[in-house]
């Protein structure tokens, strides 16, 4: 699936103190250093007062190293770890709303849903909304394929969330 021309992407998992303005500080750091942030997902963690943020960043090894070090410098950031597909479980969720095409109808979309194991969460006479869960690549390819048989009207994606595989985890000692 990997395209050699594509900019490499890596995931950074942060455990941060849940203060107002923390997300601004993290996002501001990316803007200031001119680094492309392709997704930013954050919400409360298992520990009160701390949030878990997963960033997806485009860039080479040097960019990665800078991100890692600059994130560590932010006072509210307690832990910084890198996640790779082979050491972690990655998931993204997308809600995809399509308008059906007369020549294909609903069945064409449904057959794709079956292959991708999507849940249909809303249906009208003309439209259909699906919940797609999986890797970013899986969601990309679903959107591409469903676009051949229906008109993709709206896509809302959660950004990637991830945890270490196995017994490793990122938590406060």
């Amino acid at each position, binding site marked *: 699936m990997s395209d050699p021309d594509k900019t490499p992407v890596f995931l950074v998992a942060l455990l941060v*103190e849940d203060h*107002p303005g923390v997300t*601004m500080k993290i996002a*501001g750091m990316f803007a200031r250093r001119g680094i492309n942030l392709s997704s930013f997902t954050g919400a409360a963690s298992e520990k009160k007062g701390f949030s878990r943020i997963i960033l997806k960043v485009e860039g080479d090894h040097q960019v990665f190293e800078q991100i890692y070090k600059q994130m560590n410098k932010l006072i509210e950031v307690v832990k910084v770890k890198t996640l790779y597909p082979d050491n972690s479980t990655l998931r993204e969720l997308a809600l995809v709303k399509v308008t059906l095409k007369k020549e294909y109808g609903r069945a064409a979309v449904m057959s794709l849903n079956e292959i991708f194991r999507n849940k249909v969460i809303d249906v009208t006479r003309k439209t259909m909304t699906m919940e797609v869960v999986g890797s970013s690549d899986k969601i990309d390819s679903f959107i591409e394929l469903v676009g051949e048989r229906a008109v993709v009207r709206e896509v809302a994606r959660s950004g990637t969330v991830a945890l270490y595989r196995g017994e490793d985890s990122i938590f406060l000692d």
Partner: protein
Amino acid sequence: MATKKPKDEKTLTGTGIVKKVLKDSGNTLLFGYPGGAIMPFFDEIHNDPDITHILMRHEQSAGHAAEGFAAASGKLGVCMTTSGPGATNLITALANAYYDSSPILAFSGQVATHLIGNDAFQEADLIGATMAVTKHNYLIKDVKDVGRVFKEAIHIATTGRPGPVFIDFPKDIQLTDSKQKHPVPDRINLAGYNPNIYSKAASRQIKYALDMIMKAKYPVILAGGGISIANAHSELEELVNQLKIPVVYTLKGKGIISDDHPYTLGLIGMHGRMRSNFAVAETDLLIAIGCRFSDRITGDLNQFPGQGGAKVIHIDVDAAEIGKNVPVDLPIVADAKMALTEMNSQLRTRLADPKLPKSQSWWHRWIKDIKQSEGIPNIVKKGPRKGIYPEKVMYELNRILKPDDVVVTEVGQNQMYAAHFLNIAKPRCFITSGGLGTMGFGFPAAIGAKMARQKSEIWLIAGDGSIQMNSHELATVKQHRIKVNIVILNNKYLGMVRQWQELFHDKRYAGTDLGMENNGKSEYWPDFIKLAGAYGLNGRKVNDPKKVMDALKESRESKETFVVEINTEPEANVLPMLPPGGALNSYYSVEGKQESIYNCFRRLPRVEAEAENYVFKVDVKDPKKLGKKR
């Protein structure tokens, strides 16, 4: 509005807690400017004999003065302003402190908490505005947090890689009674902040570093401002004396090692000494300590250091600086003092080994030669044909400066002349705006420096452009009886920009002429001596190169701030100079000719360092001058 005194004498209001934290931590000198939202704090410190407040004439100056104090003393600098415009005026000073890693605690009043977000009078979002220019910032929303926040802020500002910390302090919280018996926590608990000081790993890395240094043939030490921040001057000197290898320094590193030390080559970078840049271009191992490889130091990154072929050891307390601009072969994340102490002790053991091969001796002779050869240009010694050249002023200053005197510079040509030519013997005696290059920094910083070093003479080297950015501080020095020797190099231009226009923009002096031609007569404003007079201060105008010394002496003897206005050659350039982003083959020599640095050095005893047999060849006919084969 008077501060509401708590009924129970044992509890404190928000401002009372701040005063307690400042006093307990020994930070009783404050630079500030009042206003609506900070009035409760000013009321709190009014007539308090333990607190000294220096009333500046602009909030930016308050920030710079705090930084000047921090730079001269090594302690925390504290400044405070009111909300809105007061706080936004502080941002330049915060940015300056951030780039130069100065420990600054800055706090400003803010509109009352219930008004925040309503676009109230003199409200500004300072958390957003200061985010990119501070090490950390806080908005206090509960009086119970005041003690903790100020204590944490001081800790963060002064530890690890120091930096400015800003606190937004709403007026209602300043006035609220905390009703706490212990409003300041005993311990600081910051889960996400572990300033990287030293680790066992660093000690192992230092062993590898020494292996590399011992093998290197032309090693050079690059000393940065981090050494000064870590107070590791004597450790550096010991290392240099043990290793006997040359030292070059960055702008912020000036003063760390005496310019008279036999192994000091001098400033490197765009306006660095040719010999320093040449040494870095020829090195095979650069040992960088406490510096961040700014573009003004490196020039073309592909050719830095050692024309791109040298190895680099980088010691810095901030891991994020290592490998940011220059690829590093051996990173050491450590406080400079601890790293150098460890390095010295390991080195003592190694050098005691009699089997150690004596290498590098040609390198020492080369340094000696090069130091003798690239002396002070004749233009400095003999004086120019007519008019006063700034080099001449620096030459005279070197004669009048005492080792404990502190030199503070503004930004521009004056700064580069001072950094290049002045002999600074002691640490914390050269204060300048490095990373941000803030015109107007010098004068307020000189005020701060004087507050830190009451017994020392403070010399402000200024240009006529930059002194005008904060000349209103003449009122501050008069009011608070602060003595600063102000030396204005008046070339009637924004000299550095004009120099670039001359070199890179076909002499189109757009916007850099500070005077005017009127009917064949040149006019210039202000008359700096009259300006000083308006503030009740004295000065001396100098037009004759022979009178420079007299004026400097008069200034030194003066009891209060004295202005020496020296009318220098208008189109004098700071040379030598490396063009921005350029490599060493496009050097502007002292004579202003653009040539390769290697050509410049052909005039010096030419070194052909043949590493295999350590032959020291001198490009002269006399074979007796050839180095002996080992």
